[in-house]
Each structure stands twice: as structure tokens, then as C-alpha cells.
């Protein structure tokens, strides 16, 4: 290999596909071999190819890694969800299925495989009077929209499949397509439960789109960019040398994070906002007429959506792939990202295990009368925070106090208003 060729091999010289290694963002800790492992592995595979091919192959590789990675994560997540639910509910969860053809049970690790085989071999039933094309397209579209959102997520240092300037905008634009797919499923099934679910889904998803989008506007304001890597970059550095500059650790950031997560719960149809597929009311909602592989696709899309929104929350508020403490930076960035992602996903599962479901009018009221005003006020709080960034000493304390009051005040006032119709009761005895 000549020197010229070697320089071409240097990762990231000409491709924008993975963010360039020679970018100015690289810190010293980011240079470890473990940290660069994904990129080194990619270069091993593709560096010997001529330039025009390499770009295509790199793209393909990134797509495959993301797709398979999240497919495996989906399989694991179904098992983890059932295990965690089981532990919360005083039961072991799936623990019988292990390696096929052996007696190894492996704590039920074979369960996703068994589920997959079951789903694939089931009969695919389409109702006679269904709109067959839409009935087929709905799960495909839902999954496609969910997968599209993964393109802009920074999974680690320099590990972003597509470096878009308007990455966050792209993420939510692609994610909004899922609403259409859910409605398609409900409408095309020609089932009354499905139709009711479709109406609910539209009302719910559109209501929660607004607080979801409003909640991260302060983040963009602060970071000054719509790029996902830019947002992660804005959270770099340490206060007093050990407190990370994550957005969640500021008053407005915390409020925005909570609003974002609540809206994300609703957007991904998870309990307590699982109204479109409310099992006790609408059988399975928009999934009533789906079986077999299409049903599995819906599930996959639900989990993908959950993963994508959690990953976005990590990026926007939890410092992305950054380590929580300076000395922990030796751990590779993608590990931190995965850990934070799992923590949020665990939160999703935990919430599912403990809350009853809301009613549709309460659900939309909560969005319009609580979350949207909270998010708007939070915008003001963030503006105040930004304006007062050079206050110091006692003023710094005042800044915190005012910002906290700006968050807590509306929370208490609007929360009281929202819950004035009900209260714990005392009972009399005859």
C-alpha cells in the first residue's frame, strides 16, 4: 500500500456517513482503541475497496448494523419487559424456553426466538371486507417510519448514521408518520373496535405531538442547532469539574425532560396512555384484525418507536453518549448511550407495570391543559436561564430560585386545577 492509499484509508477523510474522526470535537479520552472499535471494524471491512464503492458499502453497513442491532434489542426487550413485569407482579416471567433441542433453559432467553417462530408460522388472516391494500400497508408503513427515525441518532462518539443539519426536525417529521399508519390500520380493518381505536389514536397522537415538540424547543434554543451531534456537543464539559452540563440538570431542562417523556409514553402508545389498544375496552384496538407476522411487525414498530424516543431523550437531555463523571470517560461512549437508553426503557416498563389507564377525554385534557401550557411556560424559563447565564455569586442562587419557581409554580397551580374533580375520600360507618 502506498502512502496515498494509506491516507485514503484513514477513516472519515471523504465520507460524511460516519462523522469524521478528524473533527474538532474529539477529546483525548475519545481516542482509545475501544472507543474507536466500531469505526476500526468498519474500516477493516471496507477500506480496501475503491473510493466510490466504499461510500455505498459504508452506508449499507451502517444500515445493517442499526437494523440488526435494534432487531436484537427488540427481541431482548420483549423478554426483559416480560421478566420485569413478572418480577413486579410476584411471578418469575418466562423461564422455560432456552436453546432449542437442548435442555438448557438460560433464564428464558429462547423466548423471543420461540415467539418469533410462532408469529411467523401463524396464519395471516385478512377480514373479507377489509381494505386489503391499506391493511397490508399499515404495519409496513409503521415499521418503516419507525426505522427511519434511527438515521439521525448519535449512538456514540462519531457514530451517527446520517449527520443532518436538521436532524432533530427530521426525526420528529419521520416519527409523525406513525400516526398515519395507526389510523390506516384502524380504518382498513373494517372492525368497529379498530375504528374506535383509530379515532382514539388520532386524537391522542396529535394531541401529544404538540407538547412533545414544544418540550425540546428550549434545548434547540440553548444548543443553537437542530443537529443531534450539535446538541450532544452543547452538553459537553463539567461544572466544578464533575457535574456534567446535561440539560436535565437545569430547572427548565428537567421540566422539559419530564414533559418529553410523558409525551413519548403517549406517542409510543404505552401504558398508561395505551388507549388505542386498550385491551379491556377495545379488545386489541387497531390490532384486533391483525395476526401472524403483521401483528409482530406492529409490535416491532411499537418497540422501535419506544427505543427511538428514548434515544432522542438521551440525546436531548441526558448528554447523549457522554459519561456522567469525568473519570468514567474511559468507558466507551456507545456503552454509556446503551446504558442510558436501557434506563429509560426500564422506566417505560416500570410505568406500564404500575399505572391504570386514562380515559380519552382525560388524556387529551392532560395534554392541552397541562402539558402544552407547561411546555410554553418552560420556553420562557429557558429564555430567562439563557439571559442570566452570566449571573454569578449570590445572583447565581437567585437565578436558580427564580427558575425553579417558574417551573414549580405553574406545575402546582395547573396540577391543582386538573385534579380538582377528585380527591381521596373518608367513609362513614353505620
Amino acid at each position, binding site marked *: 500500500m502506498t502512502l496515498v492509499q494509506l491516507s485514503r484509508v484513514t477513516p472519515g477523510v471523504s465520507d460524511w456517513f460516519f462523522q469524521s474522526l478528524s473533527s474538532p470535537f474529539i477529546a483525548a479520552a475519545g481516542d482509545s482503541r475501544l472507543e474507536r472499535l466500531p469505526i476500526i471494524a468498519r474500516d477493516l471491512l471496507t477500506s480496501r475497496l475503491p473510493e466510490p464503492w466504499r461510500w455505498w458499502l459504508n452506508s449499507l453497513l451502517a444500515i445493517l448494523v442499526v437494523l440488526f442491532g435494534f432487531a436484537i434489542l427488540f427481541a431482548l426487550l420483549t423478554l426483559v419487559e416480560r421478566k420485569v*413485569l413478572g418480577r*413486579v*407482579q*410476584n*411471578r418469575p416471567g418466562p423461564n422455560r424456553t432456552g436453546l432449542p433441542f437442548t435442555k438448557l433453559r438460560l433464564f428464558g432467553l429462547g423466548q423471543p426466538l420461540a415467539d418469533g417462530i410462532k408469529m411467523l408460522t401463524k396464519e395471516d388472516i385478512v377480514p373479507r*371486507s377489509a381494505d386489503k391494500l391499506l391493511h397490508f400497508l399499515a404495519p409496513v408503513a409503521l415499521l418503516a417510519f419507525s426505522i427511519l427515525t434511527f438515521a439521525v441518532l448519535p449512538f456514540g462518539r462519531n457514530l451517527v448514521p446520517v449527520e443532518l443539519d436538521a436532524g432533530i426536525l427530521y426525526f420528529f417529521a419521520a416519527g409523525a408518520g406513525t400516526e398515519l399508519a395507526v389510523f390506516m390500520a384502524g380504518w382498513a380493518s*373494517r372492525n*368497529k*373496535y379498530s*375504528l*374506535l381505536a383509530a*379515532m*382514539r389514536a388520532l386524537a391522542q397522537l396529535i394531541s401529544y405531538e404538540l407538547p412533545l415538540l414544544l418540550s425540546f424547543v428550549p434545548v434547540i434554543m440553548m444548543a443553537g442547532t437542530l443537529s443531534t451531534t450539535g446538541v450532544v456537543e452543547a452538553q459537553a464539559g463539567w461544572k466544578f469539574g464533575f457535574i456534567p452540563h446535561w440539560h436535565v440538570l437545569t430547572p427548565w431542562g428537567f421540566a422539559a425532560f419530564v414533559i418529553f417523556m410523558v409525551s413519548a409514553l403517549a406517542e409510543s402508545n404505552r*401504558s*398508561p396512555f*395505551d*388507549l388505542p389498544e*386498550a*385491551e*379491556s*375496552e*377495545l*379488545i386489541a384496538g387497531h390490532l384486533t384484525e391483525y395476526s401472524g407476522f403483521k401483528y409482530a411487525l406492529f409490535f416491532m414498530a411499537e418497540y422501535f418507536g419506544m427505543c427511538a424516543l428514548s434515544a432522542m431523550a438521551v440525546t436531548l437531555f441526558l448528554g447523549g453518549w457522554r459519561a456522567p463523571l469525568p473519570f468514567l470517560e474511559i468507558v466507551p461512549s456507545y456503552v454509556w448511550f446503551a446504558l442510558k437508553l436501557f434506563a429509560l426503557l426500564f422506566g417505560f416498563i416500570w410505568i*406500564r*407495570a*404500575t*399505572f*391504570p*389507564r*386514562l*380515559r*380519552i*377525554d*382525560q388524556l387529551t385534557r392532560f395534554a392541552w391543559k397541562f402539558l402544552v401550557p407547561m411546555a410554553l411556560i418552560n420556553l420562557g424559563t429557558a429564555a430567562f436561564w439563557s439571559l442570566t447565564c452570566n449571573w454569578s455569586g449570590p445572583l447565581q442562587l437567585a437565578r436558580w430560585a427564580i427558575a425553579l419557581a417558574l417551573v414549580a409554580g405553574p406545575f402546582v397551580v395547573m396540577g391543582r386545577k386538573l*385534579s380538582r*374533580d*377528585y*380527591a*381521596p*375520600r373518608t*367513609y*362513614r*360507618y*353505620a
Partner: protein
Amino acid sequence: MTNSPIVALHGTPAVAGGNAPSEICHSPLAPGGAHVRSVRDEFHGDLLEVSMGPHHPSTHGVFRMIATLDGETIVKLKPVFGYLHRNHEKIGENTTYLGSMPYTDRLDYLCSMTNNWAYALAVEKLAGQPVPERTEYLRVILAELTRLLNHTCLAGFLLQDTGASGTPLMYAFREREKILDLFEALSGSRMMCNYQRFGGCRVDASPEWLEAAKRLADGYNEFLDEYEALITGNEILMARTQGVGVMPRQLAVSAGITGPMLRAAGVDYDIRKVDGYGVYPRFNFRVPLGDHGDTYDRYMIRVLEMRESIEILRQAFAQLPSGPIMDPKAKIRGFKPKPGEAYGRIEGPKGEIGFYLISDGGANPYRYRVRPPSFINLTVLEDMCLGHSIADAVIILGSIDIVLGEVDR
């Protein structure tokens, strides 16, 4: 929306013509006096008729609700039952008195012990048969255990209906299993106990069994505290159940509602206090009453009743006398009561469970009739559901506490 596929699916138009006023009006402005659809019509659209059941995850068995919906609001609800009808009362007339005893287990299959007791009470009244004191105490113990069992199940199922993903249900069933274990140890069967006899009961409770039952009763408050900490104060639960499915006191009385549902509406009527059957007058217990008559009250009354049941159990274990469990003069074979009629009723977990018997002096009852609490409580379903959403109908049904074995008989 005139060509809505939903209407077409049904065969007949789903619009309730009788309820909705004609929304087509003559407008003087329209050319030629043509029919113009009013604005109200544009926004209201058609009504949707949804048949929930007989196989639906939350109709608690083979029950069917034909709900007519305006959006998600119920404008009409027709309960349909009878899918589990098995001629219980006719069979009762063709069987001996004792032969019907195991069959009463199958009425309300969660509360076989209280069904047995009510039936035994009716026959004992008919035959003038006294019951030994120890058996009376055992009956109280078993009836209160059954009340715990039933209310625990209800709390679990109700929360399941509100969409709580099984966690409350699993906690409730954990305790239910313990009570069922006790029943199995005593009667040999977990749910179909067939334990009572006319003038006594089948087997005596061993000291070990009593010890185990006592331990369960002592530990039950702990479970209730845990359960309430988990769910009672939950804001979503309160928002979902308070003010939902209100049953006015007047309606409750005139419809013949009994049990916790009646007391949740604020009517002080507990047959344990009113009739004082068995040895109930010897126990100190209170009757909780609700003021609103809504779903939350119906849930909370049951929780509070469980706490009172635990008190009764404690007193019963302390007072339990020794002695025979069967009246020595009681006749089992060739049991033929004198002609006459009797109505025996007790406060079952779901309400007044009663058996009405007419004897013509033969080995079989001439007439055998069950007063099933959940069937009669179910009759007010539509009144409670109107104006609420379909999601509420499910939890209102859950709060009525029905068992289809008893509703359909």
C-alpha cells in the same frame, strides 16, 4: 357519513331513529325548498352500535353489552345474558334436597361457601332443623373468608378493567390462592367446596387448620395496606372512578340492589345486621357506607368491608366453641321436610343471596328458586352507563361484581 361502512356492516342502519330528532330541515333559503342538512347533523354523524361480548376480555364471562355509541359516549346499552343458562332451578326441582347442595357451588363459583350456607339455611328453616354452635361459628368463619376472597378478586379485576396491566390482579390472586388453599385443606376442593349440610357441616376444622386460618386473617390487613398503598391513592384511578357510574339511592332501593353496591349508595342495609342470622349478633363490626354511589365508592366500600371481615374473623376464632359439628338428630338419608315454604337468605359477598323453597312433603323440593344478587344488581347497568364513555362502561360493569354462573343460572 351516510355511506359509512359501519352502518353497512350492520345490515340495518345504526341510527337510532327514535332517539335522534330529525335533523333534516326545510330552509327557506334553499332553492326549491330542498332538504338541507343542518350544521348539527354535519357534526354529529351516525351512531355506532358495538356489540361487546359474549367473548370480550372484560365482560367477566359470557356477558354481552350491545352499546350504541355517539363517538365514545353511550346513548343506549342493552345487556344480553343467558349464554350460561343451565336450568339450575328446574334441575333443583328434580333432585333431592341434598343433591342440589353441590350444584349451588356452581352458581357464584367464587363464593361456594356462602351459596352453600344460604341453601342450607333455607332447608333448615323448611325442616325446622337446629344447627350446633360450632358449625355456626365455622359458617361465619368460612363466609367471611369467602367475603375476603370475593372482594379481593373484585379489586383485582376492577383494576385490570381500568388497564393496570395485571399487577393489582396478581397481588390479589396471590392472596386468593392462600384462601383457596385453606378451603382445599378443609373441604377437599378449592372452589366447589360443597361443605355445608342441613343441620351441620361435612367435616370438622382441625386445630392446625384453624391456626392457619388465624394466621391468614392476622396477615390480611398487611396485604390490604400494601394493596391500597399500591393503587387506592393513585390519581389515575381516582380520576377514572370518581363520579363515574353514579347510582342514586332511590334507584338502588327501587331496583332491589343489595350488598356493597347498595351500601356504596349510602343505604344502611346489611343482612348480617338486619336479620342477625347465625351467630352474627355476637360480633362487633361496622358497616361502611358511601356517600356518592359511584365506582370509587363501590371499590372502597369493599376494601373497608374486608377490614371489617378480618375483625369478625378474629372474634370468631377467639370465641369458637368445641362440640359436635352435626346435629345428631339431623336426617340425611330419606330427608323429606313437611309441606310448607321457606326463604333463607344471607349477606353474601355480592349481596343478598337467597333460596326460596316450597316442599310438598316429597324428597325433592316442589319449587326451587334462587335470588341471585349479581343478576339483580346487573339490572341497573344501563342507568349507570348512560352518558359515560365506553371505557367507563367496562369499569362500571367491573364494579357491579357479577359472576355469570349466578346471573344466568
